[in-house]
């Protein structure tokens, strides 16, 4: 453990893009009453994969690495739709997955929002339409915001989430 703490102290803090903190501070002020009323200062996201290639998930996981450290912005990924404000939807809405996605949406308490992550949910990324794909997702769910990319890079996801907050 001593070795670990030595390493820890030597490495210091790696978090980048602290300019986003400033931006978020500004947004926080702007929509303070809204975020306080609705999100109590933090935004809880439930990620739901409706048939992705897994790269969109990988980029969401990357949001917690020391460079991005999403938690510091008060944005958290939660384990259950019942704890979530936002459903972050990736993938092409497969025939087999659609009922489960709709169920997860139903389980999310009001007020709730759906954000489409990556090019899959609304535009099927490069996949051609087919019998097993039910995209675009906005036929079934009220998609409030879209974060484009294939996959959107971590920084693009953070920016997308901030844009979503501004939109509210």
């Amino acid at each position, binding site marked *: 453990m001593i070795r670990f703490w030595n390493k820890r102290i030597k490495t210091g803090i790696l978090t980048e893009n602290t300019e986003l903190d400033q931006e978020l501070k500004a947004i926080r002020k702007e929509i303070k009453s809204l975020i306080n009323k609705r999100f109590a200062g933090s935004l809880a996201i439930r990620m739901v*994969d409706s048939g*992705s290639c897994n*790269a969109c*998930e990988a980029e969401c996981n990357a949001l917690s690495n020391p460079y991005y450290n999403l938690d510091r912005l008060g944005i958290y990924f939660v384990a259950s739709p019942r704890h979530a404000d936002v459903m972050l939807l990736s993938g092409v809405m497969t025939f087999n997955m659609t009922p*489960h996605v709709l169920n997860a949406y139903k389980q999310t308490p009001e007020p709730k929002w759906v954000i489409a992550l990556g090019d899959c949910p609304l535009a099927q990324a*490069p996949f051609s339409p*087919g019998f*097993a794909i039910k995209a675009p997702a906005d036929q079934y769910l009220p998609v409030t915001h879209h974060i484009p990319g294939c996959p959107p890079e971590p920084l693009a996801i953070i920016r997308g989430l901030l844009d979503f907050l501004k939109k509210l």
Partner: protein
Amino acid sequence: MRLIARYARQRATDFEIITVWDQKTEIEQLSLQQPSIKTLSKTHPAALWFERKMHDDFGIIIEDAFDNRPLVQQERFPDKIHPMLKSFQQSELEEAPFKPYKYETIRGDGVFEVSVGPIHAGIIEPGHFHFSQAGEDILHQEVRHFYKYRGIEKMLEGKSLSQAKSIISRISGNESIAYQLAWRDIQLQASGNELAQNSQKYHAMLLEMERIAHHLTDLGFIPNDAGFGAALAFCSKLAEDTRRQLKRLCGHRFGFDAVDFEAHTLDLEGFDSFLDLLEKEIAFFESWILGIPSLLDRFDTTGILKHYQALKYDVVGVMARASGVATDRRDTPFYQEHGFSIETQEGGDVSARFKLRINEVKQSIALIRKLKVSQVDKITLSDTKDGDYCAYAESSIGELFMSIKLKNGLINRFYVRDPSFINWQALHLMMPGNIIADFPLINKSCDLSYAGNDL
């Protein structure tokens, strides 16, 4: 013999059932009216999913099957639909009334069932795991997938090889380069072209970068699933460094669409120091993590896949090598010239898979140093010739098999067997004797793909 794949193909007057072994390929012809075959699953248990899928896809009857349940077609899938038949041209499916799926369970006094998924608690892909439990102890587990079934095989029919590429690139995000390499080899066979040495090296380099990024992610998540978050912070930083380097090399963090036949000049600034740093950090990581007894206590003897089980289930990739089965598609003269030798471990447990990944990262770093090129030449492809082609690649999970039949220059049948399709079927062997709380740890130590499996 090792079973690699078993799949069907519809022709004008018959079905062909193709069984690919490591030493030979067998083809059986069936009539279109009454197609039926005998099961191989009595001697090769992993044949089961191939055959169940064949029934769902084509309606082929498995005469002496002991498991007739649908595989890909779930509870709301309409009856009597076999989407891979040429006559199936529907662009949409109507939801049918719910037909319950009968899970494999163990019954007895005090035995209960635990259902997990398809949506899981973390940021991971959907799939279902069904446990029979005696208290905390797992008695049996059934893996049930295909929630992500996108119908890729059908989708690619009627496309040219070049049109298919960006879809093939995105079948499984973590294995994109491996999929593209299989595509590349088929393209080269079909057009009768040779790859320039420097582009072969460049592609191999990308494949090792993909492996490093994926292995590092796992090396962080495995200790994290045992409650040790610091390892995840450490490795996810390194994985991010790797993705950024990959982007500098090929323009994309996952290498989507990166494998091509164009000329490239690589941006290698800072690349050597990245490799040096990675090598140092992984050595630190190894001695740090393997020096924490409470963590090893969770890893050792957890989720054992025994050597004979790995052979019996025809397991491939990391799972096989961690159980002492030396199988790796990179075991070719090209890789050997660059210093490759197959890494294996004996234990077959979480520890073995963890250590194997560390050693493979080290080996990949060494390989990349030798493979490094700064310039890649363009090759001009000739027109493709019709025929049956197949290719292999070793993804970060294991052996990938792809087969494409070209007719009139277009894909007539696309088939791919992700390493996960075989390996998922052996996952349940690791469960008995473990507690359910160790399942995430065991599952992560194998880190199989759902997307590549479900297609």
